[in-house]
């Protein structure tokens, strides 16, 4: 890595750290100002306030906050002026300080645009954007019953729904800065294409157009065309198929952010490995560093990396040997191993490849190259692995993968003295659903349950499709009581969902068995116990959750 790049990277890291501290600094200033007396003059507090503001004036621009330096300077100038007189402040003066302070607080959220400041030169991928919270849905539907039904159903999928029964209400309520997805009926009493006609006016002058899903009973091309022209991103026929609608909404709001890829760095050079870790973390990856190759086993199991970056020359065990060992562990047969070395000798590189290295990177690699080659390696490997471990219909872990995960999670929970609860679910009378409405409808019911599970459970809980209509969930850090509460809420909500088959509506339910790790301490006992509890739930009348008795099998 060239020194300039390294410097720029460090500057960027520093400016991020600075940005992180700004809210606290602003708070201190605001607090100092609040403490400044209304009656009289407190020289100490004044100096404190002045010093705090001065700190921002002198640092903002250095860290890429030019506007902050400028506005702090404005405030500081005024404070300087007040400090000359040292007399009680009048209302006008106080207002002016407050106003200038508000300007400083605002500027603390305005970093310089990339490229305009030297601290932003390095082209490193931004930290993963947080999913913007756009789970708000505006339903504009004059059929009150249908509107209410949509609201009720979407609520189960954690959408925040606002209802409007007339176009006029909607037009008045929606503002330039309103965000969300619009579910717009096309046909209104006053205008059969009213829903389409109202949109251009609302879209005008908006920076980001509203995303509109039209609901319609017209299937004519002309109407569809008009809908597209009005900014429609989807066109759903009535009666609305909830599964299709939620799929579409999920896609538009993209609420699920992929977890950060995990990289394990094995390198005896403490400084260099920390530096690489910082570069990769900066690009949004989660990184663990091991400096002694002989310590690698535990992080390998605990951290379960998506990629391993290994230095080739290390004391005790060479990178090549380490790769060989790692490849002999079943769970890591396919993990990408990338060697990091100052080795430019082609023969040695080839030898490493034979031993299972996937790639060679030279130690002097530049930050952005490191990030991009690691990124593309991980992407490919995750994609390949997803074919092996994911269920095709639901995208959940498949039978083998969820069982593997259960074993790994139990080991990890034991080490950290944490609790795990395992859940087995089975959709009630599923055969009847398939027989009465056909397999495609059955598949949709399975998908809707998988979606509900994914949305309602925490990100680190593991959800798998165990068999046809059977699901398995590993609830991390949850004891039986907590798991019972969560699963029972999901059970209730699932039973309230309406599924659509041709023109018929029906609902479905599931039964669930739970078993706690503290009572059943290995994977097979845990699975058996959960299965037995599921059996009990079925026998007790279905649509319920049962926690396995500690005494089973006794």
């Amino acid at each position, binding site marked *: 890595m060239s*020194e300039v790049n390294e*410097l720029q990277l*460090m*500057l960027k890291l*520093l400016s991020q*750290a*600075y940005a992180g*501290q700004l809210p606290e600094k602003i708070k201190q200033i605001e607090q100092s100002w609040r403490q400044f007396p209304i009656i009289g003059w407190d020289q100490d507090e004044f100096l404190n306030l002045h*010093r705090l503001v*001065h*700190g921002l*004036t*002198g*640092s*903002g*621009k*250095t*860290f890429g906050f030019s506007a902050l*330096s400028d506005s702090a*300077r404005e405030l*500081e*100038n005024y404070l*300087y002026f007040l400090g000359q007189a040292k007399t009680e402040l009048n209302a006008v003066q106080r207002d002016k300080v407050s106003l200038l302070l508000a300007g400083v607080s605002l500027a603390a959220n305005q970093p310089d645009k990339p490229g305009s400041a*030297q*601290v932003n030169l390095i082209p490193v991928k931004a930290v993963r954007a947080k999913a913007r919270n756009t789970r708000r849905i505006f339903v504009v539907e004059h059929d009150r019953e249908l509107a209410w039904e949509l609201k009720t159903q979407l609520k189960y999928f954690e959408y925040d729904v606002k209802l409007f029964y007339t176009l006029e209400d909607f037009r008045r309520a929606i503002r330039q800065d309103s965000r969300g997805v619009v579910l717009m009926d096309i046909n209104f009493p006053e205008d059969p294409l009213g829903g389409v006609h109202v949109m251009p006016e609302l879209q005008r002058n908006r920076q980001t157009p509203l995303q509109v899903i039209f609901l319609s009973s017209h299937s004519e091309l002309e109407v569809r065309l008009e809908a597209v022209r009005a900014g429609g991103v989807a066109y759903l026929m009535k009666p609305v198929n909830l599964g299709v609608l939620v799929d579409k909404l999920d896609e538009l709001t993209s609420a699920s952010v992929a977890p950060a890829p995990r990289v394990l760095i094995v390198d005896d050079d403490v400084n260099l490995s920390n530096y690489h870790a910082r570069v990769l973390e900066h690009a949004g990856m989660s990184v663990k560093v091991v400096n002694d190759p002989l310590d690698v086993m535990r992080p390998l199991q605990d951290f379960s990396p998506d990629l391993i970056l290994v230095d080739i020359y290390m004391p005790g065990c060479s990178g090549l040997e380490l790769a060989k060992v790692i490849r002999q562990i079943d769970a890591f047969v396919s993990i990408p191993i990338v060697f990091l070395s100052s080795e430019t000798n082609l023969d040695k590189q080839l030898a490493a490849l034979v031993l299972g290295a996937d790639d060679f990177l030279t130690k002097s690699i530049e930050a952005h190259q490191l990030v991009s080659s690691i990124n593309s390696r991980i992407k490919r490997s995750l994609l390949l692995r997803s074919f092996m471990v994911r269920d095709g219909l639901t995208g959940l872990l498949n039978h083998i993968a969820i069982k593997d995960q259960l074993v790994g999670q139990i080991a990890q929970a034991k080490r950290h003295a944490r609790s795990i609860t395992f859940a087995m679910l089975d959709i009630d009378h599923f055969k009847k659903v398939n027989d009465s409405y056909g397999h495609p409808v059955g598949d949709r019911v399975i998908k809707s349950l998988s979606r509900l599970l994914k949305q309602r459970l925490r990100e680190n809980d593991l959800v798998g499709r165990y068999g046809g209509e059977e699901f398995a969930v590993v609830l991390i850090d949850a004891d039986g009581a907590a798991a019972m509460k969560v699963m029972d809420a999901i059970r209730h909500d699932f039973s309230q969902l309406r599924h659509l088959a041709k023109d018929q509506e029906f609902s479905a339910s599931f039964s669930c068995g739970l078993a706690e790790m503290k009572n059943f301490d290995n994977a097979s006992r845990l699975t058996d116990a959960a299965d037995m509890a599921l059996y009990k739930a079925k026998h007790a009348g279905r649509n319920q959750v049962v926690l396995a008795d500690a005494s089973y099998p006794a």
Partner: protein
Amino acid sequence: MTEKLVRVLYVEDEPDIQVVARLALEMVGGYTLEICSSGKDALIRAPEFKPQLILMDVMMPGMDGPTTLAHLREIPEFATTPVIFMTAKVQPGEVAGYKALGALDVIPKPFDPMTLSGQVQTIWERRHV
């Protein structure tokens, strides 16, 4: 004949600025840098570090830049050591005031970390011409 500038003492109370200044002066400038967090600290450590040049923030809690400079001048071996003030200058005439106090020059804050060492070097060389 210009003496090569190696040893720089930087007096600055803000930890953020200390870190970025270290990058700017050590990595970019290649100087050997000592950082002190207060004027008092600087007076204690200067005799041992023997700086060729001192960079000093003006506004610091406790002993400010100008006061530190005055005390420094009382120590015989620092009677003529060049001092550059760093300041987010607020008042017109401020720069002239500091120069009158005996500062070699003034570098405005906020500084640009990529060019700070260049500024320092220029001021250093200009003085010795």
